[in-house]
């Protein structure tokens, strides 16, 4: 049992190392947690090494093995522990997709302009400066900066909906605080000049101009797109 426990501890350390080296950790966690995650991997590796040493002690007759009546409980635990290890080590993760919404419709999740514009801060950008990606757009809206009419570049997943016209789609991103479990969807309405021909779930980059669309009494933040190009999923997919 000690060999198995050592192997599982070392496998957890290997999982963390793999995620950090490949950058896949960014699909699970916010980058601010990387140092803590790395330290966790080091501690787990140390625990695994000690378990290996204790196994050697046992062979030399210095330390007892766990009692036989604990074996079944432990076997169940080890079986379950293999599940996240296998998923983490063998699967190439992708950013949360549309199914993470759990069947919710995208339209109610689309960003809207605040009912009355907040006063712009003294550090407001000039109206003709381009907004770079969704995070900057969201931050500008929160600050009350002028956004209507400004050029914008944004990346996200395409989400089609029956509630939207053929040339429209929602540009979906997720905002996370710590990890994917606390992900919150952020959707932007994109209006292309024609049918962009990209399927749901495809990552795209969009260039256009920020505008406002009235839908069901709300002023949706929308992008009048003049360019929609399919791209690979970026490494910094979460906001």
């Amino acid at each position, binding site marked *: 049992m000690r060999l198995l426990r050592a192997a*599982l501890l070392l496998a957890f350390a290997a999982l963390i190392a793999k995620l950090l080296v490949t950058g896949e*950790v960014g699909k699970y966690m916010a980058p601010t947690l990387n140092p803590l*995650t790395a330290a966790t991997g080091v501690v787990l590796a140390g625990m695994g090494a000690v378990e290996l040493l204790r196994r050697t002690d046992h062979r030399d007759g210095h*330390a007892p093995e766990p009692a036989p009546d604990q074996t079944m409980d432990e076997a169940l635990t080890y079986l379950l522990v293999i599940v996240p290890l296998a998923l983490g080590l063998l699967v190439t993760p992708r950013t949360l*997709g549309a199914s993470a919404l759990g069947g919710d419709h995208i339209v109610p999740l689309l960003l809207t302009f605040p009912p009355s514009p907040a006063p712009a801060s003294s550090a407001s950008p000039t109206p003709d400066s381009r907004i770079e990606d969704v995070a900057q757009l969201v931050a500008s809206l929160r600050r009350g900066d002028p956004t209507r009419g400004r050029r914008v570049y944004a990346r996200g997943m395409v989400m089609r909906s029956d509630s939207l016209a053929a040339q429209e789609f929602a540009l979906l991103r997720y905002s996370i605080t710590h990890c994917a479990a606390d*992900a919150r969807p952020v959707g932007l309405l994109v209006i292309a000049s024609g049918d962009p021909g990209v399927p749901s779930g495809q990552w795209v980059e969009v260039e256009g101009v920020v505008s406002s669309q009235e839908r069901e009494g709300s002023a949706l933040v929308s992008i009048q797109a003049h360019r929609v190009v399919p791209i690979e999923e970026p490494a910094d997919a979460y906001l």
Partner: protein
Amino acid sequence: MVLALVLPSRLNDFSVVFVSIILQSLPFLLVGVFASAFVQQYLSEGVLTRWLPRQRLPLVLVSSVFGFLAPVCDCGVIPLARRLRAKGVPLYAATTFILAAPVVNPVVLVSTAFAFQGNWTIVALRLGMTLSVAITVGVLASLLPPVASGAKQGTTPLAGVGAEAVSSNQGPISRARELVAHATSEYFDVLFFIILGALFTAAAQAIVPRGDLVALGGTRIVSVLVLMPVATLLSICSEADAFVARAFAANFSLGSVLAFMTIGQIVDLRNALLLFQTLGRRMVFLIVVVSYALVFVEGVLITGILPSL
């Protein structure tokens, strides 16, 4: 050859949420199991009992905050409480300690603050709710006749980690290795339940439409009623439950999330058998009835006053 499987979208989303909960819980789980191992290895029961007052109410109050000195999670608290009972600590004091210590300790409070992005109001409310239950049950238990409160139960030390003796005749390297061994044993005991909890949460997020959950969680009474039994069933370790609760916070009211974190450390399936063995039927009945009633009322009140985070 390195395998690089790509899962279908829905399965990928489930897998990402599931693994992320575990990855995020691990650092705090490690802090908890090492703190627990340290207490078990270096702090003798004799030293602990000498500090305790003899009057009932002061003893209940001290027992309720004893977790600050012995920061054990709900997995380590019962073996430690049984050892305290064996050293003559009254049953009601041991009960108060069992109910409070998994939450009223620095490791869990810091992990709760971390999970909720430094929101100390939530930390204070969690602390207050747990203390209110532990002290109420402790005081009521101290008023019960000795036989009714099961005074003769819980005096036999358990086998396993919690019963291992404080060692003083080993070298520092041996003791350090022993400490790591204690921590490793507890790590695997607890990890099982964290993985189960993460599975449940990931499945709920992937399968159940959030709109439906929001509707369920939007009703003040129903939201609390729903999450309390979920917490009992999940039996998530106190060092990690705040992270799972944080995931629920998007869909449920603040009161129900706090009720989830409070009742989950007091009435959980995982420790049910140990609790019966340690405290006896009457005491467990008292704990279940008082804690469920009190946490429900507090959860509903908080939901009314502070609907969201």
